[in-house]
């Protein structure tokens, strides 16, 4: 009777524990093989309040001349007027084009800078010094001259250690752009009251964009 009890307990344990182990096994291995979730860089590469009535989303390539013109002549003015006033939320999306030899690398450095909290200075430097690094490919040197040594150290560390995350974030922006039919840069979208409106490709004059923003703000 005692032996029967021991046998019963043994088989009962095997019957209960073994299926649990077998079913847990694949789940654990699936979790282990699953890539780390892509960190959402939207907030890190954006300016202004998310609560702003207008969102301007720009798919951009740091080596594209028209993106440079748009940034220097239009986006910078937005950053001085509508963004601090809480009227516009400005979102940068990476869309490095294969025709530009250093644009992907520039996007990687900018994403690393965003993770280090130095996105604005990096973006400004990449566009204003586009001729310089575009010709030589020496992006790191150009950024080192513009960022503080502490920030540059952080950016370098992130760039060197979190390459997979950075590439995944760029790929995520590109996939979003492709899903919207983006095939050139800069591609600008204006989101207002849930309505997404693409602006004509090739950049926009600040005066015309200002008129459009003012018109949208009057709708409130």
């Amino acid at each position, binding site marked *: 009777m005692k032996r029967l009890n021991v046998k019963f307990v043994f088989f009962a344990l095997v019957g209960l524990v073994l299926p649990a182990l077998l079913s847990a096994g694949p789940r654990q291995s699936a979790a282990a093989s699953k890539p780390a979730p892509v960190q959402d860089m939207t907030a890190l590469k954006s300016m202004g309040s998310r609560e702003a009535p207008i969102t301007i989303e720009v798919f951009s390539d740091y080596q594209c001349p028209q993106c440079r013109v748009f940034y220097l002549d239009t986006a910078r003015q937005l950053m001085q007027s509508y963004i601090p006033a809480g009227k516009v939320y400005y979102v940068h999306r990476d869309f490095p084009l294969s025709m530009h030899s250093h644009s992907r690398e520039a996007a990687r450095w900018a994403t690393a800078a965003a993770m280090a909290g130095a996105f604005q200075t990096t973006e400004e430097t990449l566009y204003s010094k586009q001729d310089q690094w575009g010709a030589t490919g020496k992006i790191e040197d150009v950024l080192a001259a513009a960022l503080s040594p502490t920030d540059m150290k952080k950016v370098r560390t992130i760039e060197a250690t979190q390459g997979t995350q950075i590439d995944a974030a760029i790929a995520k922006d590109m996939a979003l752009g492709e899903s919207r039919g983006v095939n050139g840069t800069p591609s600008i979208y204006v989101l207002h009251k849930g309505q997404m409106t693409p*602006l004509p490709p090739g950049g926009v*004059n600040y005066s015309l*964009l200002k008129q459009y923003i003012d018109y949208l703000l009057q709708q409130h």
Partner: protein
Amino acid sequence: MSQASPIAIERPRTQSKARLLLIPARIILGAVFIYAAYAKLHFNGAWHLRDYYFFFAMGIDSYKMLPLAIVEWMAKILPWLELGLGTLLIVGAGVRWVGLMVTALLAVFMAALAHAALGGLEINCGCFGNNSVKPSHELIVDGVLITLALAVTLGGFLSRRGGNSQA
């Protein structure tokens, strides 16, 4: 009792055939102009009668050819001008002068497109709102359209002349 000579009968017949051939040309050209206006006023699934000109002005400005004041003025009136000219072409009213205006307008468009294509500007032509293609491709379309417009204009003038000489 006078009898009409065979030559005199043949000329009106040829003219009426030419006039018949010009009708489809006129309708095609008119439809294209109406569509061009429609595409500038209706896009992203909605009518933009109050804000269309912002987008069209941005499109015209991307050619980097005109001062902003003229760009804004053109953006405001061009869709309505295209709509008016397209309707007149289809109705067949004032064909000579409407044809002449359409030809002149297309010549201006082609000059702008050539400027953009030669300058290597990576822009949409803006001719058909968001459905536009690259300026270099649009030049081919406009080449066909200006041929039709010239045919309609010349046809209009010639038929008028023929009508006057007969009278």
